[in-house]
């Protein structure tokens, strides 16, 4: 594989935070504009994949360690289920929206949908990054 030209390297390093920012925007405004947990999470994952492709997996590995990513997946799922349990403990039924509905149109307007979006975003992002690490680093 020929060497990656420095232009691409510099651009990626500069562009990386903005991709993450765009992913955060999609996740946080999931209930207002088209977007949501999955789409934002996929963009998180693609940011990490982009860094991995350009910088090489070794460098990306020490920034986003694989065990840390798998751990985030577990914690994300745990938070998802505990959000469901909180609804149950507060007297509503399981997985029900226990937070008050904010003023329509603003970010905190949809109760616990925002937190669910964040959890799913992290989970999908780290999941795709783990799958990318595993497939790239696999040698027979």
């Amino acid at each position: 594989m020929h060497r990656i030209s420095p232009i691409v390297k510099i651009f990626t390093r500069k562009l990386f935070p903005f991709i993450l920012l765009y992913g955060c925007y999609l996740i946080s405004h999931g209930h207002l504009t088209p977007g949501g947990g999955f789409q934002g999470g996929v963009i998180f994952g693609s940011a990490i994949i982009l860094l991995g492709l350009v910088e090489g997996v070794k460098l990306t590995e020490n920034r986003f360690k694989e065990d840390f990513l798998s751990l985030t997946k577990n914690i994300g799922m745990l938070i998802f289920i505990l959000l469901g349990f909180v609804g149950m403990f507060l007297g509503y039924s399981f997985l029900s929206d226990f937070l008050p509905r904010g003023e329509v149109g603003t970010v905190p307007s949809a109760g616990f949908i925002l937190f669910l979006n964040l959890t799913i975003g992290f989970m999908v992002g780290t999941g795709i990054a783990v799958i990318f690490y595993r497939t790239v680093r696999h040698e027979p």
Partner: protein
Amino acid sequence: MSRILAITILLILAFFFFSAVKLDYGHMHSALSEYYITHGVAETGALNMVTAIYLNYRVYDTLGEATVFFASALGVFMLLRKGGEGESDA
């Protein structure tokens, strides 16, 4: 399987599909979607109705599907390990 055999099977399937499914759906709302559109914003506070459905009305589906994604990521993680790294659990 030879191509001709596959094509004949597909033609039979196509005949069944097209004869059974009536194709002029696009005019009336189902009762359920009518409810979502009228009461959606009031009950969930979200403007994006699709997110309101899959994160508030049918959030149980999303819980199930997040488990599917978790299980497949775990599967890929376990399958493509370098040799038996012992049972290091992440």
